């Protein structure tokens, strides 16, 4: 299987505070990888480095064999902007707090990025319609984000990301801003995507969800990967910290 994403020996500090220390991970085509760990452990920073919202201090970032950043003598050197723009098309990101564009209708939220990427209006609208139908939001196309529930907004933001047909989709705690009853509808969508073999990297506190869905789970703490493995391996670990953490969230 193709390697879709490879991160080698990532380091990232904020004003001398080392948030990521030597993180490596590989994600293959069709894989679902979950990242768990206590808050402040660096999960979001890792996702932000992977999606180029932060620049890494050190390490390689490689999408489908293309270097977005290459480690040269302990420092990440990024590819030229034109190449980064191309590489950005490989992935999408779903935020914890959605970040829909409030002044755009649901439809425009989904069509405009496609049109900026070069699709015609007809193609973009057809794509939006298809995705909204799949996500059960057909009747919301002309509404504005402020008129939707949190769960609906998050599904729109997933549709917006999917419309660009990314090879990899990142989720940063996609249900943490939602009430429990709205969480289920978003998890259902992600489950559906997993069935269609979408390659996904998901930061989540939903242990049961991570366990049943993931091919691989990474446990982070203090900017390090403390444990990793298949769900079976990780949920049977004798690493006490991991057991404590998982236990806390399953209670």
């Amino acid at each position, binding site marked *: 299987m193709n390697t879709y994403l490879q991160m080698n020996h990532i380091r990232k500090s904020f004003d001398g505070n080392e948030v990521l220390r030597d993180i490596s991970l590989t994600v293959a085509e069709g894989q679902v990888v979950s990242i768990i760990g206590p808050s402040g452990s660096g999960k979001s920073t890792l996702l932000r480095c992977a999606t180029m919202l932060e620049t890494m201090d050190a390490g390689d970032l490689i999408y489908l064999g293309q270097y977005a950043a290459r480690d040269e003598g302990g420092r990440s050197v990024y590819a030229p902007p034109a190449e980064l723009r191309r590489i950005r098309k490989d992935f*999408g990101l779903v*935020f914890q707090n959605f*970040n829909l*564009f*409030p002044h755009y209708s649901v439809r425009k939220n989904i069509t405009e990025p496609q049109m*900026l990427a070069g699709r015609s209006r007809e193609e973009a609208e057809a794509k939006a319609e298809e995705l909204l139908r799949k996500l059960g939001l057909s009747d919301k196309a002309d509404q504005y984000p402020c008129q939707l529930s949190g769960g609906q907004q998050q599904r729109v933001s997933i549709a917006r*990301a999917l419309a*660009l047909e990314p090879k990899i989709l990142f989720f940063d705690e996609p249900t943490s801003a939602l009430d429990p009853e709205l969480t289920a509808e978003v998890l259902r969508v992600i489950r559906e995507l997993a069935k269609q073999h979408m390659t996904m990297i998901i930061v989540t506190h939903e242990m049961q969800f991570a366990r049943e869905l993931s091919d691989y789970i990474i446990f982070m703490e203090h900017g390090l990967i403390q444990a990793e493995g298949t769900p079976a391996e990780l949920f049977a670990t004798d690493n006490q910290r991991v057991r404590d953490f998982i236990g806390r969230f399953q209670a």
Partner: protein
Amino acid sequence: MSLLTVIGQLMSGMGMTCAIFFLTLLFSLPLGLVVALLRMHRNKVISVITRVYISIMRGTPLMLQVIVVYFAPYYVFRVQISQSYRFAAVIIAFVLNYAAYFAEIYRSGIQSVPQGQYEAAQVLGYSHSQTFLRIIVPQVWKRVLPAVTNEVVTLVKDTSLSFAIAEAEMFTIAKQISSKVASIWPLLAAGLFYYIFNLLVVLVCSRVEKHYSYYKI
């Protein structure tokens, strides 16, 4: 002076006031955005210079600025001031002054747009300029409308400050007529004019605000 002459002169004053008002808005609303961007510029020198400009514009009387702009060509460069420069001086001074006020309003508006909007746009492939023009500016515009309305109301009244260089706008003319005919009525008529003008301004601005109420930020 016949009543008709008085009315005729007041009307021409109204025309001049409206001209000052609309031209000032036409230039200062967009210029304010440029000033706001310079004020937030990465380059320290640019941002400090812009900050000094804004602080002078806000910290000194507009009337003084009008006089300085009008007389500067003569006192500084010894250039004879032509009659037609009077109007230009008013517009230049007003535009420079109002751009500074609008810049500060825009700046706080821009800073109040959540970082997540920029990040979502970046990940979705928007360029910097596409992000700014399509995502940020419309939201800033909605956020700053109430503050802009306040400034526009003030501008209606501030136009009268151009009497300092005897520009023939509403207030200057009303004052001249009033002393000529020894009556307070021309001044009261001018006051009524400014009042009605501002009623219209507020009406239009609240229409515009309502137009943008289809979404919440």
